[in-house]
């Protein structure tokens, strides 16, 4: 290994510049550039950058709208099906088609399997490595010693006697649990493929429903695997509770790692076909009937759970990204179908004009833009916390979901799992945490895996009932209009996902997908407000025991990975560019990056 050559910042601040680029164990190319104050053991400044641009919204223009879900799926190699689903939702609205109930249950089952797969592989094989024995030994040997002496409170449920045993089981490849999780990621993808054909880019999704042939066999094959997963989660929830609780104990103050103000967004997921008709007019109503309730949460309070209001509040700001502004360009949508005015900075009105240029942390430094949510007063830099924490928080506060397997109480979410091969009926309760920080984002991810399994049980029952009743149609015919408007809302694995489409002359006139990572990985906007990673890493305290020479930055990596970054989603088509920029901090050249 090359000897460390990190250096003092050139601004005389006594800070040390350090960067991680590319960051491994995430999806896509993300760089985190920081200035660290080793005396105060704190990160002083942070810049998040992405270095890959593809331009979806550019090359989709003029294409047949029915191609949209096939194309947009390719935005992301781990959650592409979320894009396909969201696109199908937007197309359903634009074409005025409502799929048969069974088609909707099948999509819900596919998407539930996607959550089960993706959170599992990310949590155990990507994030888990940050907490494995080998990593902890290299960063905090004192913590590992304590872990060896600490009995796991839920050893009876998961089988690991000490916390160090859990950490050992997470060691890459050698770890038993690490390898088991890889296997789980495979049979959950089989469940997905049963419903949506193939992973990650689905083959059987269409506007109007699915091509999946619904039979008793289809549901039996799915359910057999689902029950294995349910049993698995009865071990995993207590296992992660033990591991994460231990970090609070072992490192007092660890709640500050990756912490930021509670500014969470959730766009709702998993439609109820009894209510969802895909019309814009009724969107507020069927949005509230989703099996994950939409919501914007600020400082612990629910601001809204109304999808129409959520839609109208979305703004795409520029400031630090490589695009030209679209001010003065054509405005596609002045009013929504209900007559509400639509802002020029709303995705329906966005133009993408890439402007490649040198990276300059004083000015433009990323291909990611700065989506914000306007509450009438402020442009809020909402995050999704990787998805699960926002979904559970929003669902808990609204208190609308009540299907037996899952009940939202107003302050928590109760997840009831039935008896399985070797374990009795089990209930888990996710309670609204005290902080929006790295450990709670990770904990929520595990609980949401149980949530996804629980709602899937409900969907499978509903789907099978349709089949038994002989209602096996899964797809409905439609016509593409010459002029049309569509929006799709769902929750991708990592959080909020919206697709905004405008059709003119039967072709795509404008199409802008907004996945979660653009929100989380966004850069300083035109008001100078940092994006969520930047904000969460900035001020993160350093608990690592290594001196600057051997410093790995594990606490920074844990903060960033808690958001489950996915950069292909981050930069597919951003718009941006922009004027200056009141930068809050002016770095003079991060690790020689002044260039």
């Amino acid at each position, binding site marked *: 290994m090359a000897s460390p050559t990190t250096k003092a910042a050139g601004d005389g601040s006594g800070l040390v510049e350090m960067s991680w680029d590319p960051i491994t164990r995430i999806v896509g190319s993300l760089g985190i550039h920081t200035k660290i104050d080793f005396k105060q053991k704190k990160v002083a400044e942070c810049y998040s950058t992405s270095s*890959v641009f593809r331009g979806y919204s550019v090359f989709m223009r003029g294409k047949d709208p029915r191609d949209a879900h096939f194309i947009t799926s390719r935005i992301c190699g781990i959650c592409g099906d979320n894009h396909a689903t969201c696109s199908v939702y937007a197309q359903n609205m634009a074409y005025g088609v409502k799929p048969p109930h069974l088609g909707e249950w099948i999509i819900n089952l596919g998407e539930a399997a996607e959550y089960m797969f993706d959170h599992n592989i990310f949590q155990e094989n990507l994030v888990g490595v940050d907490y494995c024995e080998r990593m902890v030994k290299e960063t905090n040997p004192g913590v590992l010693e304590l872990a060896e002496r600490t009995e796991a409170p839920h050893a009876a449920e998961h089988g690991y006697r000490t916390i160090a045993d859990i950490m050992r089981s997470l060691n890459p490849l050698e770890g038993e649990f690490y*390898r088991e999780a890889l296997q789980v990621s495979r049979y959950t993808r089989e469940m997905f493929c049963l419903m949506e054909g193939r992973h990650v880019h689905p083959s059987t999704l269409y506007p109007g429903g699915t091509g999946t042939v619904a039979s008793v066999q289809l549901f039996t094959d799915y359910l057999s695997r689902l029950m294995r997963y349910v049993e698995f989660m009865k071990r995993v929830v207590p296992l992660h509770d033990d591991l994460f609780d231990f970090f609070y104990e072992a490192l007092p103050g660890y709640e500050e790692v990756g912490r930021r103000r509670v500014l969470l967004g959730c766009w709702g997921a998993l439609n109820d076909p009894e209510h969802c008709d895909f019309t814009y007019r009724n969107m507020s109503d069927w949005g509230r009937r989703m099996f994950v309730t939409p919501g914007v949460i600020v400082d612990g309070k629910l601001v809204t759970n109304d999808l129409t209001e959520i839609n109208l509040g979305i703004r795409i700001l520029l400031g630090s990204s490589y695009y030209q502004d679209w001010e003065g360009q054509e405005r596609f949508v002045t009013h929504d179908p209900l007559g509400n005015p639509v802002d020029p900075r709303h995705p329906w009105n966005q133009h993408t004009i890439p402007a490649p240029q040198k990276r300059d942390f004083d000015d433009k430094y990323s291909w990611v833009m700065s989506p914000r949510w306007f509450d009438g007063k402020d442009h809020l830099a909402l995050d999704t916390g990787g998805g699960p924490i926002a979904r559970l928080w929003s669902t808990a506060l609204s208190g609308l979901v009540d299907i037996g397997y899952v009940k939202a109480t107003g302050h928590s979410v109760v997840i009831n799992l039935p008896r399985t091969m070797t374990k009795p009926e089990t209930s888990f309760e996710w309670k609204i945490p005290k902080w929006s920080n790295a450990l709670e984002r990770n904990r929520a991810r595990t609980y949401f895996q149980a949530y996804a399994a629980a709602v899937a049980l409900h969907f499978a029952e509903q789907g099978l009932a349709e089949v038994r009743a002989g209602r096996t149609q899964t797809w409905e015919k439609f016509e593409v209009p010459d002029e049309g408007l569509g929006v799709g809302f769902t929750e991708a694995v990592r959080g909020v996902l919206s697709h905004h489409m405008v059709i003119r002359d039967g072709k795509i006139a404008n199409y802008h997908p907004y996945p979660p990572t653009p929100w989380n990985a966004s850069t300083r906007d035109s008001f100078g407000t940092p994006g969520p990673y930047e904000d969460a890493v900035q001020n993160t305290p350093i608990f690592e025991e290594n001196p600057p020479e051997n410093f790995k930055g594990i606490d920074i990596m844990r903060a960033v990975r808690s958001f489950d970054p996915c950069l292909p989603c981050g930069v597919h088509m951003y718009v941006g560019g922009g004027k200056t920029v009141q930068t809050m901090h002016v770095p003079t050249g991060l690790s020689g990056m002044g260039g």
Partner: protein
Amino acid sequence: MTTSPPETEAGTAGQDDKPIHVLWINAGLSCDGDSVSLTAATQPSIEEIALSVLPGLPKIEVHWPLIDFECGPVQGADTFIEWFFKGERGEIDPFVLVVEGSIPNEAIKPEGYWCGFGDDPETGQPITTSEWIDRLAPKALAVVAIGTCAAYGGIHAMAGNPTGAMGVPDYLGWDWKSHAGIPLVCVPGCPIQPDNFAETLVYLLHQASGAAPMIPLDEQLRPAWLFGATVHEGCDRAGYYEQGQFATTYDSPKCLVRLGCWGPVVKCNVPKRGWMNGIGGCPNVGGICIACTMPGFPDKFMPFMDEPPGATVSVTASSAYGSLIRRLRKVTQHTVDAEPKWRGPREKLTTGYRPPW
């Protein structure tokens, strides 16, 4: 996986100690879907490859962003990107270079980058992916393009794209050969079918250790044994085609050709092989083939949900011939759907058997 495999690795008997490195660049214009897809492989699985558990596999070290243990700061402790600089300096010979994502044309703009991977310590600017290919390809034992983007440009090279994206063979030249004489190897698919890639990688590792001859490739640089047949030749709905039975709705179990399936002219083994563990697929389970393994993808197949123009003639022919066949088969079916007349609880045996007494 830069996790050096545990000391006790099984099945590596007879190999010398020097590992073969795999340098994986996921920073083409990509979605990382091929990386993700490979984690679904079971024949063999990534852990089986990493731990060299198949007979004859050499010891390997994989430097793969998706699951790599290493993630220290740039030029600090445990920096992932350092392996790529080592490759450039010839310190990890031999290595196989895997490229994921298409290669943008960096020449069409005055400055900046369409895609980069790690930073240049001199300038502080990202090192472009094409520059990495320039640096590493001459030193690589073999270069493998994973996914249709890296192979042929794929979805990001669609008409109207702003980046001028292309495949690795377009960038390096279709006749390019490594210093070991190995041509570019393309494993197309969007994403790759998991086992297709695992199998190709294993083949190359066997070849590298002297156990297998030169990898057989077709003219588009695809492994010949995987991409020799068409989708249609392996599709279990082809029987409907022959009988002239074509779906008019997407949820029908019949042949999807009239609804946009390009299977008859697309080289891909998915319906035959299944997506994973024999489950899933495309037209065999109700998803039209959009030809995602092909060099002409996606432009030559859009709009995807329209009937392929070439299908009209053959579909008309098959409809005529098929309805006759179906009628004849119905007659036969009626016959074979009933048991022979000698089965039943009767006084007398009527099977034709004559007792010898």
